[in-house]
């Protein structure tokens, strides 16, 4: 008949220590988990706060005449940003005209010549370009397109913004083209399609939804760009659609109004900001919607 096993004092001390250390570790765990949750909450707050203020201060001024009227002189209430809104649309169109073909073309090259030295270099340079401050693009367009002709122009702004689009569009095009199933390409080639026709009519078309998304994301990013425009289009308080003249733009107008001393213009700046944000969010949402179901419905036809 052996006695039931009893822990020695040493064992008891050890267990006590272990329990104590476990308690401490659990406390540390609790604190750190709390901090992580707090960080997550804090990180989501800025978006809510900023959009909240935009709506609070801007919504009152966003009425029909905001879109149809011209800016009023300083000190006069009312007025709109018709010229700036049209200007921004023109600038986006110019930028897309310049940036999209080059971006998509370069992206095709990246996808079709994967692993070659040139493709790797171009891909790396795309990422470097993507990280360049937008103000640098403004200086580039100013030096080559504004300085020689001694006047600001919508063209120069379009080129600066288009140059920003190229690396973004090239990288998304590359990604979208390279996820097109190889079997599709092989099927077309086996049917006797030339390589170029396979690429343009089969591969590019299959990837088109993704490429459109990439283009829209790029447009959403340049739509609010201000710094390059300071050096290229300058802004214009009159209505102008001439590509050879300074042109108004929504972000520029927001900047001028936001830094002006007049209360009325502050309200206009908030309203402009709200309109710009809504524009960008809508473009982003369309971009999200465009990729949805790409590989469920896209390959069917």
């Amino acid at each position: 008949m052996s006695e039931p096993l009893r822990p020695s004092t040493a064992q008891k001390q050890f267990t006590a220590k272990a329990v104590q250390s476990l308690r401490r570790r659990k406390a540390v765990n609790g604190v750190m988990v709390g901090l992580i949750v707090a960080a997550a909450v804090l990180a989501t707050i800025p978006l809510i706060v900023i959009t909240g203020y935009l709506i609070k201060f801007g919504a009152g001024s966003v009425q029909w005449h905001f879109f149809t009227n011209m800016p009023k002189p300083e000190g006069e209430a009312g007025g709109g940003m018709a010229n700036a809104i049209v200007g921004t649309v023109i600038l986006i169109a110019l930028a897309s005209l310049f940036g999209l073909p080059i971006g998509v073309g370069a992206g095709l090259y990246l996808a079709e010549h994967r692993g070659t030295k040139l493709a790797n270099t171009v891909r790396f340079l795309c990422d470097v370009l993507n990280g360049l401050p937008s103000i640098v693009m403004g200086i580039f367009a100013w030096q080559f397109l504004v300085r020689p002709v001694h006047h600001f122009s919508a063209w120069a702004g379009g080129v600066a913004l288009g140059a920003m689009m190229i690396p973004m569009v090239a990288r998304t095009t590359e990604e979208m083209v390279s996820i097109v199933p190889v079997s599709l390409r092989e099927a077309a080639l086996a049917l006797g399609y030339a390589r170029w026709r396979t690429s343009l009519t089969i591969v590019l078309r299959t990837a088109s939804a993704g490429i459109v998304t990439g283009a829209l994301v790029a447009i959403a990013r340049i739509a609010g760009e201000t710094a390059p425009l300071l050096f290229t289009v300058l802004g214009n308080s009159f209505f102008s659609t001439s590509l050879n003249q300074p042109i108004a733009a929504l972000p520029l107008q927001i900047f001028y109004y936001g830094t002006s001393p007049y209360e009325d213009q502050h309200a206009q700046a908030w309203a402009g900001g709200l309109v710009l944000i809504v524009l960008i969010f809508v473009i982003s949402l369309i971009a999200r919607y465009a990729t949805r179901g790409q590989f469920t419905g896209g390959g069917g036809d």
Partner: protein
Amino acid sequence: MSDVVATPPAVPTVKGGAPATSSGGDGFEGGIEGSALGDRIYAGVIWVFAICVPVLLALIALSIFLAGWPALHRFGLSFLTSSAWDPVNGKFGAAPAIYGTLVSSAIALLVATPLAIGVSVFLSEFAPPWLRQPVAFFVDLLAAIPSVVYGVWGIFVLIPLLRTALIPFLRDTLHLSVIPLFSGPNYGYSMLAAGLILAIMVLPYIASVSREVLLAVPRSQREAALALGATKWEMIRGALLPYAKSGIIGGIILGLGRALGETMAVTMVIGNRPEISASLFAPAYTMASVIANEFSEASGDLHLSALMAVGFVLFVITIIVNAIARWLVWEVSRTGSKG
């Protein structure tokens, strides 16, 4: 997979008894010759588009260098070290702007990094699936807000908040004014304002890279740590973060690249004064903001050239920073996919 794409399938040169041609309506012979020519044209065209990227970067570098050359030539290396920015007497030194850029970016990273890592860890380890998408979306959307809108918000909301609440709290209530960093007069427009607004702006960049890297950490790493009896935090600190470290650092450097070149929001809140002050509450300048702020009112060619020379310095710094960040992120994704 990709070698199918990389090596061109032999152009069919079979004669007679050949397999069916495309149903596209090409004549047999013409189709083959046409396709060889077409392939060459196609390859040439996309090559030209690809070459546009290096050419564009070279042109950008050239344009900024040309525009800044007169000032760089005249002041030499002292342009980087001199803190005299005096357009009236034609003396230009970029030191205050360089200092302001570095300090405001440092504040931004100090504030944004813990938040970004916190929210990424939350999303990858704690968040219930229904919460993941919305929180990630909310943080990512911060990157979609234009700089100028941050600027307007900064002028009318952040600056008054700093002036009436945060700065008096730090300086007087907490008595931090014994440190030069937190002393001096309170204008609102300040280095601190610029740093805080930059923090919000770079947060989504750091957060999205960290999130991706954390999600890529293998389950086995987590399970091994938990099986050894680690608490959740010990698992995060001991297994998760070390594994994802270099990727997260890449994300931080990417955020740094953004912060260095950010223009409009900073110009609108930093106060634009070319002085090096020990106090974070004092107005300052950054490289981007000095260019944006003085470009339209530059007095004479030398002033203009000095602004462009600042742009050239900014260009070189951001290129280096971005190259390092890309290299780090690539290195991680390469070793990650192998291991």
